[in-house]
């Protein structure tokens, strides 16, 4: 429906580009895949509110991928949608991954509709990529592409040798999809509070999120400047205590700005990224349920260690501002976060057998949070159409309040089979 209306808009906006010659001919190709995903918790524990017992995931998916472009390329469209049966909850549902229409004129590209936007240079560490993620999907072993969620946006890009500009305006807010207590053990300090409400930012002109990226090559670097005005993707909480405790969850306002740079160096690729998160609803750091402002920095190095073996090393840190206020206003009984959260990661990827086998391992450990996450995976391409992957998500941590530590009871192994058509 949205594609159809977007196409109408497109056709109205640029009758010249969709001229008589092209109007009757919008060649469309249809592809897709069938996929089965399953994930089983290996710790033998079951969350108290859990559904599905040991299963974190059990589903069959049908992907439809429809794309087309006019002969000149001045108009194009893409639709990617899944229909899936969730065997754990026994329901059938849909997931509109992307659906946009676009047109290109001169140095401008415009896209309208749901689209996935990925910025920044980190591997699973996100600074200037402020767009929504699906962590539940990722931690339960769905393929990596499901980590990113689409945004319903207008995206305008300008390309030139001197400067490239990418602007994404999103009137409809999409938050991160966080692991659900129905499937995962999670740290929730407010679990006992009966009255909890959650609000998403209402659709209003002033709530339109705007992200901008300016980029060009500079001194052999791919250099980007980023800015974003919108909301944190994870809800904060405000606690009211009249007539018993009441939790209101909402997405606090956020402004970020930052930069990234990437180039060939030292026989590999080096990357740097930094950004400041300005938490507008908790400038002083006095609201314990809301995130403080912070700095995020990342340095990464990728190189080939041997034939078909590539390694990526990353160092990442979040530095909280207003830490003294945070400590002062943090209610008693809560374990305080550190001022600095540092994480190191290594990813190894080895291809074997004409790249029909891919072995990979991602290890991330935080010396400050004292927690770790390990994701080994073996994937195999049985033919051009059929592929399978087996992997595991393994968590450990000293405290159950940290990002990976809270997941320690959720170790799981996953299996994914995909047939392309």
């Amino acid at each position, binding site marked *: 429906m949205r594609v159809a209306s977007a196409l109408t808009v497109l056709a109205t906006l640029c009758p010249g580009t969709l001229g008589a010659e092209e109007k009757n001919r919008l060649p469309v190709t249809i592809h897709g895949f069938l996929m089965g995903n399953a994930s089983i918790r290996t710790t033998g524990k079951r969350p108290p509110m859990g559904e599905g017992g040991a299963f974190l995931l059990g589903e069959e998916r049908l992907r439809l991928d429809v794309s087309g472009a006019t002969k*000149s390329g001045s108009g194009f469209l893409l639709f990617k949608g899944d229909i899936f049966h969730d065997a754990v909850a026994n329901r059938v549902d849909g997931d509109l991954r992307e659906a946009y229409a676009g047109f290109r004129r001169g140095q401008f590209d415009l896209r309208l509709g749901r689209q996935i936007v990925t910025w920044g240079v980190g591997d699973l560490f996100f600074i200037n990529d402020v767009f929504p993620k699906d962590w539940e999907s990722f931690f339960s072993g769905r393929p990596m592409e499901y980590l990113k969620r689409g945004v319903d946006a207008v995206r305008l890009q300008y390309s030139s040798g001197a400067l*490239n500009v990418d602007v994404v305006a999103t009137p409809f807010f999409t938050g991160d999809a966080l692991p659900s207590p129905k499937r995962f053990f999670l740290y929730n300090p407010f679990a006992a509070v009966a009255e909890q409400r959650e609000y998403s930012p209402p659709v209003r002109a002033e709530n339109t999120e705007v992200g901008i990226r300016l980029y060009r090559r500079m001194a052999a670097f791919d250099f980007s400047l980023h800015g974003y005005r919108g909301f944190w993707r994870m809800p904060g909480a405000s606690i009211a205590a009249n007539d018993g405790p009441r939790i209101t969850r909402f997405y606090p306002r956020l402004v970020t700005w930052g930069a990234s740079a990437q180039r060939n160096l030292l026989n590999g690729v080096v990357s740097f990224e930094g950004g400041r998160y300005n938490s507008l609803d908790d400038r002083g750091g006095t609201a314990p349920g809301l995130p403080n402002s912070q700095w995020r920095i990342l340095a990464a190095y990728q190189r080939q260690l041997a034939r078909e073996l590539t390694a990526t090393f990353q160092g990442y840190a979040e530095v909280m501002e207003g830490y003294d206020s945070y400590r002062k206003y943090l209610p008693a009984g809560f374990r305080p976060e550190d001022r600095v959260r540092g994480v190191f990661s290594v990813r190894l990827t080895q291809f074997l057998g004409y790249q029909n086998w891919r072995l990979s391992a991602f290890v991330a450990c935080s010396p400050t949070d004292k927690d770790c996450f390990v994701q080994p995976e073996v994937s195999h391409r049985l033919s051009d159409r059929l592929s399978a992957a087996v992997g595991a998500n393994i968590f450990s941590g000293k405290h159950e309040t940290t990002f990976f530590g809270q997941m320690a009871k959720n170790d799981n192994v996953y299996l994914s089979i995909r047939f392309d058509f």
Partner: protein
Amino acid sequence: MSTRIVIALIAAFCPLAIHAQEKLTAAEIVDKAQAAFYSPGSDTKARVVMDLINADGKKRTRVLTMLRKNFPGGREQRYFLYFHEPGDVRRTAFLVWKYPEKDDDRWIFIPAVNMTRRIAARDSRSSFVGSDFSYEDISGRDLGADSHTLLREEKLGDFACYVVQSTPKAAAEFSRKLSWIAKTSWLPLKEEYYDAQNQLARVFTADKIEAIGAGEKTYPTAVKRTMKNVQSGHRTEVVFESVSYDVGIPADIFTERSLQQAPEKWMR
């Protein structure tokens, strides 16, 4: 001493006498072969079908569009590669800025997450998309990376060829390579790659050569080529369909913009 001076004077005043022989050095022959094979025309566009066939005859197919543009002032080239098949890599695109004397700049676009990334360029020995060709085989090896020796001249089929041996100066995927380079087209018709134990490891053959016209010029092109791993029995057959040269691909096609949305006009 005086004899040398006389020879030098003859050489200086009679260049024709010396050049009449057209005795090319091995490096000059390889240089001409590289130019004919890797950079004919000012630009090129082709649809490439790669069949990866294992010893049991099981076949996998990669289909891509390749755009290449030469940049003036040396051997700088830019490539744009866009995958149509198989399904799990559909819309994946590579952008390569190739420099003669330093590591290439290489970017990949991963369509599932709409992400453009640089990739480490040192893996020139790694397989190109799982084929028997390495990245280096696809885009060429620096002339100065090897020592070249002209071994002999002989016929390969109907074609008179130079046979050149190239020995890498630093560690490489092969210990030596023998090339049969056609005297007329300058195309390598056959190459044998030997491993560290001096055993024949891979054999390249140009199986079908066509003269592709572009305006008043024609470019001899190996439209079918094979790389066979003689040790494993695996081979890759590549067919260049609808090759065209000097088509005027603009330089700005070779940028991140094309990775994110392939330039439709050049994909057909």
